[in-house]
């Protein structure tokens, strides 16, 4: 069977924009030029008069025909703030961010829709703009949601361990702060889908860039007021997602457009739409203090992290939910006595927050890694020495951390040691010393991290839903269903490797089917693909293998212990006469002679089908309450050179050591590592969505919102350790987010190391050339 990779490379991918149906209409959104305004008048007459326009859908239509977007995460706890705003897919009365859609034109073709879109007249009454979290939280700030007392959406307070004891024991307490800019992930493909409401059957079917079809079905059905069972959501080839395509938002307008017109309706957004009206992330600031002993022992942390969430998320509660991992992740992989962490989320007149690779884990770990490196410098220790002193040790697993995570296992010192073998830091430190004399500024950054993977939390749509089906077809090929949508992360090849390894069939005989809402599951997010869906698939494959052994034993008149399966051949002991290909075997099992010749017990147990559907649940979560199941380990070492006259940072060397447990596919892991590291470098050095005081997003295209190109990507040296997790079915650990977590932290700490002669603390990112130059200019005159 042809592999996905071959199909895509030969140009036969079927992405959302390739979808074509008979009589298909096209939908284009029209957005607000204002960040905050009342809609006074919306006139669609001129647009509807354009030949080829079928109809215009306004916010008023959406409010009339659909329900508010459903709640996806809801947490209330004494002393906490947790608010959710009632919002529709399009507003009828008020816009709250630059670009917010107010109308959608449905026309015979996209160009006509775009021409008509320009003819929609909207009169706005501008309102005062809340331009950032700091402004939002000021007393008497203009409010985004009239029924809220203020703009604070979330305020969470956590006490982990015993923070007071930690600070009492401290030799010193160091004040720390950190801020990172607003960014978005940029899949190469924007969002898009086709919706078809069948008026005869009362069913809604959608195809497109859906990352979580099962959850999206629920949410679209809820907004559309349709019975969920009558809605079907189908993922097609997806050009990257990174968490950014878990939406059920504009998709509702597409569904409504089909319902109101009776047509197939397609919407596919240009990248500018994705940047301006898409999901954003980061944009947080940390204030805190860390308690340590003079020998480098880490004791405690008190910190508050404030998030600029933008408007209420289109995934209601999912933006706010990301504050949990941001607050928990500073524990990272070290022994701590106690922490008090508060997480605040403010709503502002910016585009909404959603999931993006990292989802808060990155924020907490980036913060604490910067803090630890600062502590090391203050105590005159190396970054590696302070880590070796505080690592949880390999014989302590499973380790219940103060933040309630149950760390599965790993070799934290071994991971860092391996990285230190790859980069001769002493040599680089000598080079650094020598360079400084000549005005050359080399910096060495060291960061270690774990990645909490495979989320399962209560009171939200991500409580641990997964389902898998593995089946042998009558022709001997094998089909696999799971909720792990292929979003470019390699889920198909991973499943092929798992299933062929367990069943003994040929890899090319395994077909991983596109994910649809028929399979229960929360989809690939929170790096859960290798944890939950992979475990469910492995479990199903093992059960199916047991069936194959049992059937084959009866066909060969032998016992199951005699059955040997390898490379697509089912054999019996050493008897070369007794061999069946999967095709021959399946033919026997299904048709000739078929079930009637299977053992009587098999039939009485209703086990005659070569198909297993099952699920899987994290073994560590039920008792411990750990929100995550596996914790892969990584160490990043980067050597950079900062040109202090221009502010440009050049990466001279980059090494990454990874322990994701059992390796299902090395290529997949290496691909994740390369992509994640480069994304992290983007966040560290160049990416930032810039809003002005009026809430206008200034960098709205690839020309202005800069992500690294191949030119900026360094040579990335990778090494793997393998410590299989005891908690997943295959021993694999989730690892999709780890590379972005480590890389942005390590680049920034390396820049700080390079700039240490100037006494500069890198407390803001991105460390863009201009910002670095400003730091150097603002430092205490010359080098200290």
């Amino acid at each position, binding site marked *: 069977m042809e592999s996905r990779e071959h199909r895509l490379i030969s140009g036969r991918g079927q992405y959302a924009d390739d979808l074509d149906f008979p009589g298909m209409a096209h939908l*284009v*959104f*029209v*957005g*607000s*030029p*204002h960040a905050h305004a009342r809609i006074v008048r919306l006139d669609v007459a001129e647009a509807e008069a354009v030949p080829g326009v079928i109809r215009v859908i306004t916010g008023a239509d959406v409010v009339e025909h659909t329900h508010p977007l459903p709640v996806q995460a809801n947490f209330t706890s004494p002393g906490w703030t947790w608010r959710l705003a009632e919002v529709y897919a399009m507003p009828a009365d008020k816009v709250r961010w*630059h*670009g917010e859609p*107010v109308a959608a034109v449905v026309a015979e073709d996209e*160009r*006509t829709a*775009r*021409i008509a*879109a*320009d003819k*929609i007249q*909207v009169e706005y009454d501008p309102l005062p703009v809340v331009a950032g979290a700091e402004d939002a939280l000021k007393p008497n700030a203009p409010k985004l949601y009239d029924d809220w007392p203020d703009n604070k959406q979330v305020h969470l307070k956590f006490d982990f361990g015993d923070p007071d004891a930690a600070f009492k024991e401290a030799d010193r307490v160091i004040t720390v702060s950190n801020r990172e800019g607003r960014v978005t992930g940029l899949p190469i493909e924007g969002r898009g889908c086709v919706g078809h409401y069948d008026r005869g059957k009362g069913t809604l079917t959608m195809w497109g860039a859906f990352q979580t079809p099962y959850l999206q079905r629920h949410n679209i059905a809820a907004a559309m007021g349709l019975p969920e069972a009558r809605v079907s959501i189908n993922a097609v080839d997806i050009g990257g997602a990174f968490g950014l395509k878990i939406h059920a938002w504009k998709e509702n307008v597409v569904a409504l457009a089909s319902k109101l017109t009776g047509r197939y309706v397609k919407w596919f*957004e*240009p*990248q*500018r*739409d*994705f940047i*301006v*009206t898409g999901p954003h992330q980061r944009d947080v600031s940390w204030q805190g203090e860390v308690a340590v002993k003079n020998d480098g022992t880490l004791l405690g942390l008190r910190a508050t992290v404030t998030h600029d969430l933008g408007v209420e998320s289109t995934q209601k509660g999912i933006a706010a939910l990301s504050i949990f991992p941001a607050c928990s992740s500073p524990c990272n992989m070290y022994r701590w006595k106690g922490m008090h962490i508060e997480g605040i989320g403010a709503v502002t007149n910016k585009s909404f927050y959603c999931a993006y690779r990292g989802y808060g884990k990155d924020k907490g770990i980036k913060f604490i890694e910067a803090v630890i490196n600062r502590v090391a410098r203050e105590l005159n220790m190396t970054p590696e020495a302070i880590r070796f002193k505080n690592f949880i040790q390999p014989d302590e697993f499973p380790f219940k951390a103060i933040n309630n995570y149950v760390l599965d296992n790993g070799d934290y010192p071994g991971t860092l040691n391996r990285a230190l073998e790859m980069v001769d830091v002493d040599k680089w430190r000598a080079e650094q010393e020598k360079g400084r004399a000549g005005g050359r500024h080399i910096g060495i950054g060291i960061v270690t991290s774990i990645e909490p993977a495979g989320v399962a939390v209560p009171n939200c749509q991500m409580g641990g839903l997964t389902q898998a089906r593995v089946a042998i077809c009558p022709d001997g090929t094998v089909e696999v269903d799971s909720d792990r949508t292929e979003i470019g992360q390699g889920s198909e090849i991973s499943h092929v490797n798992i299933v062929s390894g367990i069943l003994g069939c040929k890899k090319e005989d395994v077909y991983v089917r596109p994910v649809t809402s028929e399979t229960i599951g929360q989809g690939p997010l929170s790096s859960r693909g290798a944890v939950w869906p992979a475990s469910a698939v492995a479990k199903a494959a093992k059960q199916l293998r047991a069936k194959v052994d049992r059937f084959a034993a009866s066909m060969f008149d032998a016992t199951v212990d005699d059955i040997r399966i390898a490379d697509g051949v089912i054999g019996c002991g050493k008897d070369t006469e007794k061999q069946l290909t999967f095709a021959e075997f399946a033919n026997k099992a299904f048709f000739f002679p078929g079930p009637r010749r299977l053992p009587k017990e098999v039939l009485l147990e209703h086990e005659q089908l070569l198909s297993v559907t099952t699920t899987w649940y994290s073994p560590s979560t039920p008792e411990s309450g750990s929100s995550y199941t596996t914790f892969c380990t990584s160490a990043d070492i980067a050597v950079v050179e900062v040109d202090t*006259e*221009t*502010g*440009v940072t050049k990466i001279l060397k980059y090494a990454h050591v990874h322990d994701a447990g059992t390796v299902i596919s090395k290529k997949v892991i290496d691909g994740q590592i390369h992509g994640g590291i480069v994304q992290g470098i983007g966040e560290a*050095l*160049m990416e930032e969505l*810039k809003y002005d005081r009026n809430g206008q997003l*200034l*960098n709205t*295209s690839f*020309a*202005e919102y*800069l992500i*690294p*190109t*191949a*030119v*900026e990507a360094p040579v990335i040296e990778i090494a793997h350790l393998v410590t299989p997790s005891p908690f997943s079915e295959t021993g694999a650990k989730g690892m999709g987010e780890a590379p972005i977590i480590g890389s942005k932290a390590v680049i920034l700490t390396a820049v700080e190391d390079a700039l240490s002669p100037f006494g500069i603390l890198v407390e803001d990112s991105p460390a*863009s*050339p*201009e910002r670095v*130059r*400003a730091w150097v*200019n603002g430092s205490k005159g010359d080098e200290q």
Partner: protein
Amino acid sequence: MNQFIGSRALPDLVYHRPGTMDDLLGLVKGIEGEYRVVAGCTDFIPAIRGGKWRFADGINVVDIRGVKALSGIREEKGEIVMGAATRLSDILVSPVIREKAPVLADAVSQMASPQVRNTATVGGNLCMASPAADTAPPLLVLDAKVAWRTADGEETTPLNKFFLGPGATVLPPRSVLTEIRFPAPGPDEAARRTRMGQRTAFVCSIISVAVWLRGGPEKIEAARIAMGAVAPTPILITAAESVLIGKKPNEATLAEAAKTAASNIAPIDDLRATADYRKSLAETLTRRLLAACVGDLA
């Protein structure tokens, strides 16, 4: 304020592709209604899609790439001549440019992406008159002239007098830029350029600088410094020339020249950089380029 629309529709275009210079000039002379002369369209299409330019249906688009005489690079009578429709990728691989004016090839190598360079043209880059046009600073220090034709004749002007402001040039109505020419540099000349963007590749310059020196290690006989993205047009900065000419090119002289150049620009703050940062870069980059040129002359 315009509605936010992620991408706007192209109007109905009336496409013309004349095959000879005479046909082209005749067409442009007689064309009725609004028209635009285009070549690679790498600015034209995004400007419409992004809502920067709006045209009514029926706009005439005159594609000059059918006229062979407008493309190609040759050396004649001590001058290097480039047709206006010469693609950036052709400049990059031209043996003449690589040998005689590597500074131009260097500039082009950092422009846009290979895909864009395969269609974008040098004439288009100049006619768009972006303050950040990356071919302009090296061409300015190479003392380039540009020529244009109308149905009624031909005119030539120094590139230094070509730009009037962002998007504006001295090109008269119903004319077509035909070629860019500059003297082939001699062995006692050196030219270098660089630019800064918010990243290295495929980005609009926040400043670009080119310098050219004639002379030797003992004395600079002539100098030119040009910059992009520091003024409404790419500019030659003559103020620093007198600091260099007749002097021995030592570190102090170069530093003073760089300082003088930077103090004679008045850049603006914009999305990409502040004026202060641009001035700071102007000095640093000019000093480094001068030193590199001096090294080339040694």
